[in-house]
């Protein structure tokens, strides 16, 4: 049955073939052209297109695999100079490649659901008036609205990547640590954004592979095994060697790494992801405007502050100190430190690991350098794996998936796709609130029907999104007619309103993770 459901979801994805696609479509077409027409040592050098290859080698190899099929469909798309080539068959092929590779995710999710059923049965779960947990998990993961928007409209290959991530988590949960480590190493070599959650993996693997635990789950320091750590390291190292080895031999390692980590980009992406730096920027802007109004600032600074189109790549802070990549790195590392310590001394294995992993992604999302709004998926998708177990995490998930997925809306700005994204978002939200509310609330409690598990303030905050949406879609353009003077205002409001929520969610999740045991 789960396979049939996933097939049905794939049909919906298939219907999106002709939907709007962003420049990422051309990015991936170009990478196919690069891997098809250039020898290995030019992959990370070529700059014929502005969209240079900036994913790790294993992903490039995957693109190379696609080209063998693509050559049959339309060889034109594999020509390097054919910039922005998008024939109908090219579109169909690339969209299909996403849908087909998504079956890795489907496989991982179904395996996970089966595993979950097995372990939850043993812990004598009460059979109430709720859905089958397998079904809820499958829906929440496979029909994830963020994934639908980012992969199947915007165009990216996150499905397969998250599939590998879930597979890795699943193997680690099943105590096949080496296999899990292998999958995660592979994942890192497909998209390096997963480095954000590497601390959690590293700590958990070290803790469990090298040390044994006593009956209460506490660590036994004397049980250190050099053999096992060697084995673990050799698996990870061999994956990296196969991936990066050829480039190392040709002396291109730094060239490749330079492409992978372009620190020349700004602190925030073109559209501000709803993180800490959005709040920081807005505070700066607010102080600058207030300062210029009150004539507290020297005149050379007021001109910068008066600038309204502040959403350019390089945002110069006028009052607060300008942030450098190093600062964000330090802040991220510092915020992760208590989390991994907590994981190290945790006595609860699996769940704590998944929670820690999501929290690491959360910290990176909040404090990282040049964070994309899409990175929110890195928090919500792993977090989905634990929402059925604990009420507090279900609440965090519900809030975050609402806010985070709404913050993806500006990604798809075209009006034709607007009903789709709103419809799918509402469906996903209604389903997740309904199913998780049913699971975690006693049936006798009658007062909590609307937005279950939320406090009053949170409910008001969530309902506020309706106002935000109405303002952005209608009032801004048609009533206030600010479109020509303040075109970025809706984006700014969205970022700011989401950022406030995200920051709040981070605090309560931190509290839950560190204190609540």
């Amino acid at each position, binding site marked *: *049955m789960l396979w*049939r*459901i996933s*097939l*049905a979801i794939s*049909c*919906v994805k*298939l*219907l*999106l*073939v*002709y*939907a709007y696609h962003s420049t990422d479509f051309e990015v991936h077409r170009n990478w196919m052209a690069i891997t098809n027409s250039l020898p290995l040592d030019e992959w990370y050098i070529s700059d014929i297109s502005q969209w240079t290859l900036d994913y790790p080698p294993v992903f490039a190899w995957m693109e190379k695999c696609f080209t063998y099929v693509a050559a049959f469909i339309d060889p034109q798309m594999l020509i390097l100079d054919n910039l922005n080539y998008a024939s109908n068959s090219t579109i*169909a092929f690339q969209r299909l490649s996403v849908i087909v590779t998504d079956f890795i995710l489907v496989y991982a999710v179904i395996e996970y659901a089966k595993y979950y059923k097995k372990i939850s049965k043993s812990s004598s779960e009460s*059979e*109430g*008036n*709720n*859905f*089958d947990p*397998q*079904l809820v998990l499958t829906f929440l993961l496979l029909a994830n609205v963020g994934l639908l928007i980012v992969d199947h409209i915007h165009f990216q290959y996150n499905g397969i990547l998250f599939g590998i991530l879930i597979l890795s988590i699943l193997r680690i949960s099943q105590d096949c640590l080496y296999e899990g480590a292998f999958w995660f190493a592979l994942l890192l070599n497909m998209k390096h954004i997963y480095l954000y959650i590497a601390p959690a993996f590293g700590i958990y693997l070290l803790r469990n592979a090298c040390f044994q635990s006593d009956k209460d789950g506490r660590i036994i320091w004397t049980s250190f095994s050099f053999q096992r750590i060697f084995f673990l390291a050799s698996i990870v190292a061999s994956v990296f060697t196969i991936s990066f080895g050829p480039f190392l031999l040709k002396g291109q390692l730094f060239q490749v790494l330079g492409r992978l980590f372009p620190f020349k980009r700004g602190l925030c992406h073109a559209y501000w992801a709803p993180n800490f730096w959005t709040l920081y920027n807005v505070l700066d802007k607010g102080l600058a405007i207030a300062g210029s109004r009150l004539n507290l600032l020297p005149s050379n600074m007021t001109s910068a502050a008066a600038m309204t189109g502040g959403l350019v790549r390089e945002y110069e802070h006028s009052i607060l100190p300008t942030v450098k990549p190093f600062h964000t790195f330090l802040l991220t590392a510092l915020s992760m430190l208590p989390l991994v310590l907590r994981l190290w001394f945790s006595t609860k294995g699996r769940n704590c690991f998944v929670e820690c992993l999501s929290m690491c992604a959360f910290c990176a999302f909040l404090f990282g350098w040049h964070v994309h709004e899409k990175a929110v998926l890195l928090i919500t998708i792993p977090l989905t794996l634990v929402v059925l177990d604990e009420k507090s995490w279900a609440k965090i998930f519900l809030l975050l998936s609402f806010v985070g997925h709404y913050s993806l809306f500006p990604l798809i700005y075209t*009006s*034709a*796709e607007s*009903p*789709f994204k709103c*419809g*799918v978002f*509402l*469906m996903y939200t*209604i*389903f997740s*609130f*309904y199913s998780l509310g049913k699971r975690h609330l006693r049936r006798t409690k009658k007062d909590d*029907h*609307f937005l279950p598990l939320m406090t009053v303030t949170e409910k008001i905050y969530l309902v506020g999104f309706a106002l935000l949406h109405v303002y952005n879609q209608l009032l801004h353009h048609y009533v206030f007619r600010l479109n020509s003077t303040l075109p970025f205002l809706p984006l700014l409001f969205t970022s700011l309103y989401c950022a406030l929520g995200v920051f709040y969610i981070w605090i309560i999740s931190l509290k839950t993770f560190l204190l609540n045991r």
Partner: protein
Amino acid sequence: MKNVTVHLSLIILFAIVIRWTISLHPYSGAGKPPMFGDYEAQRHWMEITYNLPVGDWYQNTTDNDLQYWGLDYPPLTAYHSWALGIVSHSLNSSWVELHKSRGLESYDHKLFMRYSVLVVDLIVYLPAVFVYFLFCSPGLHDQYSQLVVCTVALLYPGLMLIDYGHFQYNCVSLGFALWGVIGLCKGHDLLGSLAFVLALNYKQMELYHAVPFFCYLLGKCISHFRKNYHEGMVKFVKLSAVVLASFSICWLPFLQSREQLTQVLHRLFPFARGLFEDKVANVWCSLSLVVKFKQILSISALTKICLTTTLLLIIPSSLDLLFRPSIPKFKLALVNSSLIFFLFSFQVHEKSILLAALPVLLLLPENFFACIWFLLISTFSMLPLLVNDGLTIAFLASTLLFYLLCDILTCVEFQQSVNRCNQNITRLKFFLEKQSQMLFAAFIVSITGMVILTFVLLAIRPPERYPDLFPVIVSAYSCAHFLMFLVYFHWCQLTISPSSFLSSSNDRTESIQDNLSVKRQHKKLKSN
């Protein structure tokens, strides 16, 4: 949130989402000058009705070239176009500019047109489906099955592909017809006939449904008449008054002169167009594989042949309904009548199968399996048209989705996992127990045939001598299925026992009275 609200909102949102994804696909005649397609026809009607006085809408004038998508639908469509014309003028006046807007295609205009379908769909068709399955279908007792049938009916790919892909407003006429059925089911015959008149005045193809409506209402009048002379007479007069009044209100602007009326009628029933258009899965097109009717016979002869066969074939189900009027028979007669019209009448479009598909949707609660089979075949029969419109992917995805949904929603495992608290609900089954292995095998063979033919049509180049070979085979294949369904639904209608339904007490008394009256008539005849 209450369970029902959640379920209903999820179903509605899902229906909207799927409809909207289909609307992202191309429409008929996109980028194909000089004639374009149905999309341009609808836009052109907005242009004509917005700019010209009512009297000129159906007339060939210097500003209204009837050769270029002249208005050939009844007045309600024209009024709808006029209203949309006003809206589109206020949004962007170039969309309906006389003469200059011909063949207009733009991103925003496509969006406007797609929205216009969604709006009327949400107003007319969607609520009708819910009302019908939640309140008018006696076969379903538990809410789960009712909602499943709603979902399946709303996601019928044929209608979605034609309205949101190809581009038409079938949801309006079919929605009104459905409201008519609801009215009759609930015993509000006057409201029902009013809704049906609206349907008929939106699209003349609704005539396919007219015979059962007429026979059912007349039959009911007759049975009232027998019980109570006065009551029956009043009912008849009321019904005819409602029908005549609503008709004349719809046609008011065109009743000024006799010429105008004949001109409109001439536009609505263009007998000069030919036996069938393109490749349609009806009997004449399929037989033309063997006999070339179009070459042998003149158009007037063909018209007569079509007319007589259609009328002859429609007699059994109509008479049955006329003398034993009951709601179950009425629904089956709707299927039979529209199928006969589709298969045997003159000048049929592929899209007209939707008119048969609507009453089949209504039978879903009673006979899930046969209906799903029919609905799949009916969507398949439009494949050549859809491929032409560039809707291949939409067709494949939505049909597969529809099949999977039927399969998932009716499988026991799924029903158990969503209804874990109450184990003993009456389960909707894809296959009934009494259905034999043979039938299942036939279904599998038929579906496999469909898949193979789809593959052949899409992937294999036809031989040069017969460029239309595969579309014709698709039509013939579907036509054979439709003929079998015709026989099957006739059998259902004629053998259905009135006592097996909820309104059995009424029906039984009526049928007894029918018998008595038949005997009385015999006696009268003999004495005469």
